[in-house]
C-alpha cells in the first residue's frame, strides 16, 4: 500500500529555536494516526508545515507522490489536505451553511443549489443539520468543533488533520466527535489526530507517534508507545 504522505528530515526554526528537527514520518493511505506529545513539543508546528500554514526550513514533504513544499496552503487544500484548528475559526459573519459553501466553492468548484445540498448532507452526518441557517457566531463549543470538522470535510480531503478537536468537551461530546472521525476514516480518509485526551487517542489510533522537543521519540503500535519510558519522561519530566 502506497504512502499518502512522506515527510523527510523536516526542520523548522523560529529565530534560534528549533521547533522541529529531522522529523521523518510516512503515513499509509487510510491510516488512523495519533500524534501525541507534551505542550510545546512541536505537534501544531508539524501540522502547520504539512498544511502549509508555515513554511518548513529543511526537509521535504510529498503528498501522494508529489512535492508540496512550494505550494501555498490553499493549493495544498485543493490537492486534498484539510485541517481543523485547535481554536475554532468560524467565518463569523456567515451562517453554518455558508461556512461550508466556501470550501465547496473554492475546492470543489460547486455553488448554488448543488452546493447547498452537499453542505446539508455533510451537516446531517455531523448532526448539525438543524443549525444550518444559524449564525456561526451563535454556536456552542461542541457545535463549533463539529462545524470545523464539517468545513474541513467540505473540502473533500484525502488527508484530514484534526488538531485537538475534542479539547474542553464533555465525555459524551468527546465520544460524539470520535464516532464522526471513525466514520470518516471508514469512508477512506486518512486521518491524523492530535489529542491530549488519552482514551480517545487510544480508541482511535492504529498507530501512535510521540513528539518531544521537535523530534519524534517513538513511533508504532499504540500500546507499545504508551508503555515506552521515553514517552513517560517527556510527559512527566525527569
Amino acid at each position, binding site marked *: 500500500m502506497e504512502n499518502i504522505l512522506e515527510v523527510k528530515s523536516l526542520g523548522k526554526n523560529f529565530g534560534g529555536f528549533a521547533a522541529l528537527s529531522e522529523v521523518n514520518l510516512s503515513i499509509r493511505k487510510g491510516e488512523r494516526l495519533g500524534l501525541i506529545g507534551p505542550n510545546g513539543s512541536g505537534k501544531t508546528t508539524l501540522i502547520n508545515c504539512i498544511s502549509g500554514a508555515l513554511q518548513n526550513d529543511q526537509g521535504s514533504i510529498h503528498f501522494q507522490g508529489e512535492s508540496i513544499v512550494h505550494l501555498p496552503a490553499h493549493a495544498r487544500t485543493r490537492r486534498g489536505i484539510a*485541517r481543523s*484548528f485547535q481554536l475554532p475559526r468560524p467565518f463569523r*459573519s456567515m451562517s453554518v451553511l455558508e461556512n461550508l459553501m*466556501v470550501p465547496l*466553492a473554492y475546492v470543489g468548484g460547486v455553488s448554488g443549489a448543488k452546493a447547498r445540498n452537499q453542505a446539508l448532507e455533510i451537516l446531517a452526518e455531523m448532526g448539525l443539520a438543524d443549525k444550518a441557517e444559524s449564525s456561526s457566531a451563535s454556536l456552542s463549543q461542541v457545535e463549533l468543533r463539529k462545524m470545523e470538522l464539517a468545513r474541513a470535510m467540505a473540502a473533500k480531503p484525502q488527508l484530514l488533520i484534526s488538531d485537538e478537536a475534542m479539547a474542553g468537551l464533555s465525555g459524551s461530546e468527546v465520544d460524539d466527535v470520535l464516532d464522526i472521525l471513525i466514520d470518516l476514516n471508514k469512508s477512506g480518509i486518512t486521518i491524523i489526530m492530535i489529542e491530549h485526551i488519552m482514551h480517545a487517542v487510544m480508541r482511535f489510533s492504529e498507530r501512535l507517534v510521540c513528539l518531544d522537543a521537535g523530534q519524534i521519540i517513538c513511533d508504532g503500535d499504540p500500546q507499545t508507545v504508551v508503555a515506552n519510558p521515553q514517552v513517560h519522561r517527556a510527559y512527566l519530566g525527569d
Partner: protein
Amino acid sequence: MKYWIVSALALLLAIALALSGANEYIFFAGFVVLQAIVLATAWNILGGYAGYVNFGVPGFVGVGAYTALAMHLLFQAPILVQILAGAVLAGVLGLGVGLLTLRLRGIFFSIATIAVVFILEAIVMNTRFLGGATGLQLTRPALAWGFDSYTRMLFVAMTAMAILAVSVARYIQNSHIGQGLQAVRDSEEAAECSGVPTLKLKLIACAISGAMLGIAGAPLPMYLSYVEPASTFNLHYAVIALAMPIIGGTSHWAGPLIGALILGSLQQIVTVTVSSELNVLVVGVLLVVFVVAAPDGVIGLIKKWKTSSK
C-alpha cells in the same frame, strides 16, 4: 433587474437635469456627493469586504488627477481617455502597495498607504511638468455633447461613474470573489485552509479599489481647470472615504452609498449654516461614534431593528 432599471433612470435624470437650466449649485454639490459615493464604494471593496484599511485615499485620487493631467498635457486626450488612464495607473499603484505589504499584518498595509500619499505628493511637488508645488492652470478644450458648462458635463460623468462603482461593488459582493473576501475578512487562516487563494483575492481587491479611487480623481483637472498638490492630496478625502462606509455599513454595497448620501448632505448643511471647520469635525466625530457604538453602520442598525421587531 430592478437595480438596472433604477440605475438607468438615475443616469437619464442626471442628463436631463444637466441639459436643463437648473441652478449651477446643484451640479456643484451633486458632483461632490457623487464623487464621495465613488470614493466610499471604492474604499469599501478593500476595507469593508476584505478588511484592509486604506488610509492613502488622497494618494490614489492624486494619481488619478495627475495622470489625467499628464494625458491632457501630452496628448490632448479626451476626458474618457484621461479617466481610463487614471484608473489604470491608480489600479497599478493599488497592486503595488498590495504586493509590498499584503503578506504582513493588516496594519502595515495601512501604514504603507499613508507613506504612499506623502511620497507621491513629494514627487509631484518636484515635477515642474505637473505644476510643482504651485500647481498648474490649464486650458480646457471646447465642450462636447451640448452641455453648457464643464460642471454640468462632469456631473453627468460622475453620475455614470458612481453607478459604475456601485455596480462593480454589487457584482463583487454577490460573486465568488465576494464570498472569498468575506472569508478572508472573517478568518484569513481558515480561508486559506478552505482553498481560498487569499493573496490573489486581496490583490484583486487592491487593484480594483485603487482603480476606482483613481477615477474619482481623474475628472478633477477638467473640473477645476486648475490642479495643485495641496488640495488634490488632501487628507479630507481619506477621512470621508473611511467615514462613509463605516457610517453606512461596510458589509453591503449599499452601505457606502447610504453613508455618502447622509454625510454628504450633512456636510453641505453644516458648511452653509455653521462653518466649514465644524463640518470637518462633524465627519471625524461621526466616524468615531459609529465605530464605537454602531460598527455595522446604518445597515447593521436596520438589520437589528428588523430582527428585534419580529
